Each structure stands twice: as structure tokens, then as C-alpha cells.
């Protein structure tokens, strides 16, 4: 039990860190290409970019660890095997966190943040699930 928890913990840290790096890169790409620009002129502001990197990488690593522990707890009931199991878990997180949040935002007309939920959150949930599924095995 302790071994599994540790494994979920370590796999979660790594998967969360990777997800955070991807989130930061997506925000930069979104700004450069104009796909999704939450903050105008942000690319010229080093302090702002540093804050973004620390926020996204730091928080995704912390939350990745927590989600990794939850993953190891509910592992047996998640469908699939290996990477597929991790991907299903990532999609489950995307459903309950991001789709639910996006549904309320859309209902109240905040479409810009709905796009952000899909543009940033969907890829990071998939990558998080992929890495978690690849690293953690009960």
C-alpha cells in the first residue's frame, strides 16, 4: 500500500511537472500566434513570463502529485491498462474539472475562458494522463 502510494506520488510529481511545462509553452504559443491571448503585451514582460512559468509549472506539479495519489487509490476501477488507464484518468479530470467549469462559464457568457479551458487544459490533461499511465503501474 505504502509502495503504491509512493509510486503514485512520484509519478504524479513528474507528470504534473511535464503538464505544467506544456501549459506554459501553450500560453506562449497562444500569445505569439494570437490563438488565445489572455494578457496583451505579455511576451515583452520578463517578470510576467517568470510569474506565468512559476505559477503553471509549480501549481501543476503540486496538483499533479495530489491527482497521482488519487489515481493510485482508484487505479483498479479505472478502465484500460498502462498508458490507456492514465489517459482515461486524464480525460476524467478534464471532464470533472474543465468541462464542468466551462459549462458554467459558457452559461454566463465568458467564452474567452471557455476557449482557454479547451486550448490549455485539454492538452495538459492528455499529456498528464499519458505520463502518469506510463510511469505508474500497480
Amino acid at each position, binding site marked *: 500500500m505504502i509502495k503504491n502510494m509512493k509510486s503514485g506520488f512520484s509519478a504524479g510529481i513528474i507528470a504534473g511537472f511535464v503538464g505544467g511545462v506544456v501549459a506554459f509553452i501553450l500560453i506562449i504559443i497562444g500569445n505569439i500566434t494570437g490563438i488565445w491571448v489572455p494578457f496583451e503585451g505579455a511576451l515583452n514582460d520578463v517578470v510576467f513570463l517568470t510569474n506565468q512559468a512559476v505559477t503553471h509549472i509549480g501549481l501543476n506539479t503540486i496538483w499533479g502529485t495530489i491527482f497521482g495519489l488519487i489515481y493510485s487509490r482508484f487505479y483498479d476501477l479505472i478502465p484500460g491498462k498502462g498508458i490507456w488507464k492514465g489517459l482515461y484518468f486524464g480525460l476524467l479530470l478534464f471532464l470533472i474539472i474543465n468541462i464542468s467549469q466551462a459549462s458554467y462559464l459558457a*452559461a*454566463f457568457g465568458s467564452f474567452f475562458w471557455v476557449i482557454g479551458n479547451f486550448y490549455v487544459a485539454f492538452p495538459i490533461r492528455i499529456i498528464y494522463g499519458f505520463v502518469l499511465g506510463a510511469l505508474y503501474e500497480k
Partner: protein
Amino acid sequence: MKSENNMKNILLAGVIAGAISGIIRIIGDLVGSAIGLWEAFKVPLANYATIYIILSAIWGIIFGLIYSKFYNLIPGSGFLKAFYFGLLLWIVIRVYGSSFLMAYAGWRTTFQANEIMFAGFFEMISLGLALGYLYKK
């Protein structure tokens, strides 16, 4: 036949629990804005309440299905099991969302994070408890 009844049971439990949690969230929002924890609504209360309760009822079905699927692995029994499920939802959805808003540290996002965190606590705990009361495996 038994599994069909079980499915109807969880769908109904989810709708009712979701609607209850939506009502609790709105009450929490009103109390919090009245005592100055966050800003009052920007949209008319009737519109806000209708949309929020309908969406919460829909999401209640999904959370109910998740509750029934993972029922055996949620720690505790009876009241505690339901409470833990609500607490888990609060952490994964509301605390998670608030942490990103707080990281931006603007006064507006901090106000919004307070609302999501505190009103969201009562919302999610009531969802878990209502599901636990209405749904028995």
C-alpha cells in the same frame, strides 16, 4: 432488472443532489457577498439561480455516476463515505480552480477565488451528503 433500478436510482439521486448543491451554493454566495467576502452578483439573481441550479442538476448526474462507480473504494461508510466524496470533489474541482485564480493575485481574482473556495465547500459537501442519503448500493 436490479441494475436497471440501480441506474434509475443513481440518475435520480444525482439530479436531486445536484439541484440541492446548486441552491446551497447560491445561498453561500449571497451570505458571502452580504458579509463582504466577495462581490455581489453582476447578473440578476433569478437568472443566476436558474442557470446555476439547472447546470448543477446536470452535473449532479455525472458526479452521481462517478460516486456509484467508485463507491467501494471511497473510504468510510454511510455518512462519512458521502462526506469524503464531497470533500474530494471540493478539493479536485473548487480548491484546484481557486489555486490558479489566487496565483494571479489580482484583487478581483482573489475575491472570485474566495467565493469558489468557500461557497464551493458547502456546495460540494451538500452534494456528497445528498448523494449519500439518496443513493444506497
